[in-house]
């Protein structure tokens, strides 16, 4: 009975495949010539370096991903151009809600329906350790397109020094964003955009005080300032590792301690930085008290409605800011010594379960190319930073995505976001620290007491240290993070 059923389905499937192959092959090739003529020269060279027909039979690849509406459109458009270039490959794109992504992926894997290629967050390292995904270094061997030194050095999701889940696909960094009109109203100079001229923390606090205004119009430097009735805050920040870690690194601290056997956030160099952030809320009253990410307005809303004049959070906010119709800008982080920051983001992973590795790798290259479709280029011009070195070193390529003439790029973008990051990057905490997801869950909940002013950073981090230490297992790179 079961045999019969599967035979019939196989038959139907075969017929369907043959039919779809026959009917569409003609007009598909037609389309290919059209689109390749239109897309940029880069795509043409890529498309032509690989033979168009990899094998005789049509092949289907499953690609699971998450993301916003714009991201979905970008991925779909790139899949379309890909299918045009390789008519014998069908890509089944599955857009999955990001909150439930791992649930769905786990279910698929458990049922033996593992996708061929997928978006991935920090859990990918466990997949790597469990032997579920390909080591990117193996895949890249002998393929000049994927040569390891084409990519930025800090952007690798490795699960051991010799095994990698690949470079970041969608890069973001920590960014200081501001509403320029509010600076003008308060008669304060705009934040500097170059690392050399960056504010010290004290200067930063001073500016934030001038920009924090109570309901009677007094700023936070005024002795009569009413901290219970603030109508405009100088600064808002999301209370996450990606915000405070650049400051911790710059101050000589680390997420882990020197010998990487335990938490490092309780050490004075790191705790001082976290305390500085908490003091913005509880001592200087220049930042709002509710900073749990769920209840906090996002950067675009906060700056546009003048709830805050400055905002420190990930650069993914740039797209919304550019749409908000306000006079916004970016500055370097207020770090005037040993400026250190990082790039971070998800990457594509290739599952060992794939039966079409060659085709999957073609898709991998296609999707990670910032020029594979107009829509994906738009993502790189609004949210993502490229991961390939040439987009930073080659002036023309840099202008392609970072030119300040582009609508979503404010003045100073190249200095404040691109150069400051490119020249001062280390590996992002999330990428390097083993067990980061679990450790950070503990750290985050403990930090809630610091933000609320109930405990000092040192007290809270020392308290949670014992629990954290049992989870600490060093870093993937082998260096302190």
């Amino acid at each position, binding site marked *: 009975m079961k045999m019969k059923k599967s035979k019939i389905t196989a038959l139907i499937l075969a017929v369907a495949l043959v039919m779809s192959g026959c009917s569409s092959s003609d007009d598909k090739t037609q389309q290919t010539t059209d689109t390749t003529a239109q897309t940029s020269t880069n795509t043409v060279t890529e498309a032509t370096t690989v033979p168009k027909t990899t094998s005789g039979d049509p092949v289907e690849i499953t690609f699971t991903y998450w993301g916003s509406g714009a991201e979905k459109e970008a991925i779909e458009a790139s899949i379309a151009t890909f299918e045009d270039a390789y008519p014998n490959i069908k890509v089944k794109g599955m857009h999955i809600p990001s909150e439930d992504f791992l649930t769905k992926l786990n279910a698929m894997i458990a049922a033996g329906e593992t996708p061929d290629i997928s978006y991935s967050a920090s859990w990918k390292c466990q997949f790597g350790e469990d032997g579920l995904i390909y080591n990117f270094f193996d895949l890249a061997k002998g393929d000049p397109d994927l040569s390891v030194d084409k990519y930025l050095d800090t952007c690798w999701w490795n699960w051991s020094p010799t095994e990698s889940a690949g470079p970041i696909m969608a890069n973001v960094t920590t960014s200081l964003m501001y509403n320029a009109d509010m600076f003008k109203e308060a008669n304060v100079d705009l934040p500097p955009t170059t690392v050399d001229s960056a504010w010290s923390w004290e200067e930063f606090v001073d500016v934030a005080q001038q920009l924090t205004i109570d309901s009677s119009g007094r700023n936070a430097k005024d002795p009569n300032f009413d901290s219970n009735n603030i109508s405009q805050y100088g600064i808002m920040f999301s209370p996450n590792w990606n915000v405070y870690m650049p400051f911790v690194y710059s101050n000589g601290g680390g997420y882990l301690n020197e010998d990487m056997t335990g938490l490092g956030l309780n050490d004075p160099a790191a705790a001082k930085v976290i305390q500085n952030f908490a003091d913005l809320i509880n001592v200087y009253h220049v930042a709002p008290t509710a900073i*749990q990410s769920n*209840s906090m307005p996002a950067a675009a809303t906060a700056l546009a409605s003048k709830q805050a004049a400055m905002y420190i959070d990930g650069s993914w906010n740039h797209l919304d800011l550019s749409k908000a119709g306000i006079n916004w800008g970016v500055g370097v982080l207020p770090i005037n010594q040993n400026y250190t920051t990082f790039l971070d983001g998800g990457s594509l992973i290739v599952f060992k379960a794939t039966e079409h590795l060659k085709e999957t790798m073609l898709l991998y290259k296609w999707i990670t190319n910032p020029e594979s479709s107009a829509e994906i280029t738009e993502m790189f011009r609004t949210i993502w930073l490229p991961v390939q070195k040439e987009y930073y070193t080659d002036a023309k390529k840099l202008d392609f995505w970072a030119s300040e003439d582009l609508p979503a790029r404010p003045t100073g973008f190249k200095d404040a976001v691109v150069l400051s990051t490119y020249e001062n990057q280390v590996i992002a905490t999330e990428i390097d620290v083993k067990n980061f997801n679990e450790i950070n869950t503990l750290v985050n909940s403990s930090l809630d007491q610091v933000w609320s002013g109930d405990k000092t950073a040192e007290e809270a981090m020392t308290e949670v240290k014992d629990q954290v230490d049992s989870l600490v297992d060093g870093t993937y790179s082998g260096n302190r993070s």
Partner: protein
Amino acid sequence: MKNKMTLRKKRENIAGFFFSLPCIIGFIMFAAIPMMVSLGLSFTDYNVINHSTFVGLDNYSKLFNGDDPYFYKSLKVTIYYVALSVPTSIIFSFSIAMLLNRDIKGKGIFRTLFYLPSIVPTVAISAIWLWVLNPDFGLANSILKSIGLSPSRWLTSEATVIPTLVFINLWTTGSTMVIFLAGMQDVPRQLIEAVEIDGGGFRTKLFHVIVPMMTPTIFYNVVMGFISGFQVFAQSYIMTSGGPNNSSLFYVFYLYREAFQFMRMGSACSIAWVLFIIIMIFTAILFKLQNKWVYYGGE
């Protein structure tokens, strides 16, 4: 005569079995088998993507000996929530149902209105609540300030987060209210009229007729309140992520995180089975106590 009785008994046994057959099959397939699987997995370190290895009682002992930083905390948080939310939501929705069961014009419209908050998708209503209750910019605190009361921290302080979630929960008790309404339709009119003729007031009607007649429905809502209260999940998942400082770390949220974020399905199964036993004990107690106060017309 005797023969007839046993014949009837036999028939009853057969009929009862066949009426319940669909749900017996359903229970075996969709509850018993998965439950047994999860019980088995609770003794392993299964992570879904790999083969499981037997670890004995490790998962359980880790919970009880305090190695797991969240277990006791989440249990405490959840019991606190259940203790607050079950009575408030029962009393609240019963009162609303009483109100809507009166002879008023536009009953249908009002019933729909009162049910509306429970049908607004959780993601949308959570966004609205987060915005209203934001301590710095939210509407709730500006209103409190304008009438001279001191503002609250609502969802952002350890002391107020659970009471706030209980309060938010009142908005979504529409389904409990609907069940009460349906139950009220079964209260015989004659009994209420009899009280009225005897000159009994509202209280007599409520406590001597309506409440006693509705005990099966009340019992249902109490039991379901406990079972679903212990499994509350969406609120902390969407609104608070368990914070601040784990003060809204609901048990099932913690379990879900263990299963699908930390990928420890084996340990998640053991956490689930501990909850299963807790709920079972509570429910068994409730069922034992029902003889004292629940009145079934059909018994």
